[in-house]
C-alpha cells in the first residue's frame, strides 16, 4: 500500500492548503451526516419534550461533524493506494501529493478523540459511545475489512452512515428508542440503491482498483435487480414513522411523493442496460439521475421531519 501512494515523480510538488485538509474530511458526506444528526436531535426534542441547552446542542452537532471528518480522513489514509488508481479519486489530497499519509492518519485519530470527548462533555456517554462506534464502523469495519472483501460492502457498511440520527437522538434523551432506529433503517436501506447507482457508472474504475463492488462481481443486471429490491424496502421503511407517530401528515406526504419518484427512477434503471456492456448514453444518464435524486430524497425526507418539529407542523396521521 505504501509504494503506490506516492505521487508520480514527474508531478510538480505542491504544498497542502486549508482546502486539502477540508477535502480530507469528505465535506459532502459530512453535510449529509450533520443534517441527519440534526433531524434526530430535533425529532427527539419534539417527541420526548426533553430540551437540550442550545449551545450544548450546537457543540454536539459539531462533534458529529468532527467525527464524520475523522472517519473520512482515516478512510482516505487507508484507501490512498486505490484512490491513486481510480481517476475519480486520484485528485484527492493524499494521491495528489498534497498531504502525507502520516498527517492524514494523525488528523483522523486526533479528531476522533476530540469529537468523542466533545460529545461526552456536551451530552452524555451513550451519544459519545455511539459516535465512537460509528467512527470505528466506517474507519475499520467498512474501510479496512468489508470494502475490499465482499460485494455486500456498502450494504453492511451503510450502517456507519446510518448512525447520525441515532446519535442526535441519544444526545438529547440519553436513550435510543424504536423511533431512532427507524431513522437508522431509512438511511441503511437508502445506501445500497444510492451507492450502486454510482457504481454502475464507475464499475470499470472499481474493477481496475480490485474493489469487489456488486456490478464488478455479479454484473450490472444483478445490481439493478438488487437496487430495485432495496428501493422497495426503503419506501416501505420510510413510511413506518407515520405508523409510530414520529412522522405526521407533512412527513407522510413527502415520503409517499418522493418515494414514488425514487421507485420510478429505480424501475427505469432496472429496465435499462445501465452499467452493462450494451449500455447507451441514455441508460447511463438514468443511473446518474437516480444517484442525484437519491441525495435529494434523503435531504427532503429529513427536512420534512425537521420542519414538522421545528416550525412546528406535526399533525399525527394516526391519533391514538
Amino acid at each position, binding site marked *: 500500500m505504501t509504494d503506490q501512494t506516492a505521487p508520480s515523480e514527474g508531478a510538480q510538488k505542491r*504544498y*497542502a*492548503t*486549508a482546502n486539502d*485538509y477540508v477535502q480530507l474530511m469528505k465535506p459532502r458526506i459530512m453535510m449529509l451526516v450533520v443534517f441527519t444528526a440534526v433531524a434526530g436531535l430535533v425529532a427527539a426534542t419534539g417527541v420526548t419534550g426533553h430540551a437540550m*441547552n442550545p*449551545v*450544548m446542542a450546537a*457543540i454536539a452537532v*459539531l462533534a458529529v461533524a468532527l467525527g464524520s471528518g475523522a472517519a473520512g480522513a482515516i478512510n482516505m489514509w487507508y484507501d490512498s493506494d486505490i484512490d491513486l488508481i481510480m481517476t475519480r479519486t486520484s485528485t484527492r489530497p493524499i494521491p495528489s501529493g498534497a498531504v502525507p499519509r502520516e498527517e492524514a492518519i494523525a488528523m483522523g485519530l486526533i479528531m476522533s478523540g*476530540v469529537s468523542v470527548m*466533545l460529545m461526552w*462533555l*456536551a451530552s452524555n456517554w451513550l451519544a459519545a459511545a455511539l459516535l465512537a462506534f460509528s467512527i470505528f464502523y466506517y474507519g475499520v469495519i467498512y474501510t479496512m475489512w468489508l470494502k475490499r472483501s465482499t460485494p455486500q460492502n456498502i450494504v453492511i457498511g451503510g450502517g456507519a452512515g446510518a448512525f447520525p440520527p441515532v446519535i442526535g437522538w441519544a444526545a438529547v434523551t440519553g436513550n435510543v428508542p424504536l423511533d431512532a432506529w427507524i431513522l437508522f433503517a431509512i438511511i441503511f436501506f437508502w445506501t445500497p440503491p444510492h451507492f450502486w447507482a454510482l457504481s454502475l457508472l464507475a464499475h470499470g474504475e472499481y474493477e481496475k482498483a480490485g474493489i469487489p463492488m456488486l456490478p464488478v462481481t455479479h454484473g450490472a443486471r444483478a445490481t439493478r435487480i438488487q437496487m430495485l429490491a432495496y428501493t422497495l424496502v426503503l419506501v416501505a421503511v420510510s413510511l413506518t414513522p407515520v405508523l409510530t407517530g414520529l412522522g405526521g401528515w407533512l412527513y407522510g406526504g413527502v415520503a409517499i411523493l418522493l418515494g414514488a419518484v425514487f421507485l420510478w427512477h429505480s424501475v427505469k434503471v432496472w429496465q435499462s442496460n445501465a452499467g452493462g456492456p450494451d449500455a447507451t448514453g441514455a441508460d447511463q444518464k438514468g443511473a446518474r439521475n437516480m444517484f442525484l435524486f437519491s441525495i435529494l430524497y434523503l435531504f427532503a425526507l429529513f427536512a420534512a421531519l425537521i420542519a414538522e418539529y421545528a416550525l412546528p407542523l406535526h399533525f399525527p396521521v394516526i391519533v391514538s
Partner: protein
Amino acid sequence: MVKPVPPVSEEMRARKRRNLWLGLALGGFVVLVGLTTAIRLADANEGNVSFYYNTDDSRQADGAKPELPPGMTPDQAAPPPNLAAEPPASEPEEAAPQ
C-alpha cells in the same frame, strides 16, 4: 557537519498557514471545553445538585420531602451542621464592647 537546507519561500508560507490553522483549531477546542464546563457548572447550581439531600427545601411548592434511598434516615441524608444553609440560631452573639 551537514548544513540544514533552508526551506523555499512557498514551503515557508505553507507551514505558516498550517501553523495558523492548527493554532486556531487548538484555541477553538479550548474555548469549547471551557464553554461546556461553564454550562454544566451553571446547570448543576440551578438544579441545587449536591452531595447531600436537602430534606428541608422550602422551594418545594407542595412541601414534599425528597424520597430517600431505602434504609437511609433523614439524619443521615442531611448535611452536617457546619455545611447547613443557615447556621443554628442557638449560639448567642457576643455582646459588643461598650
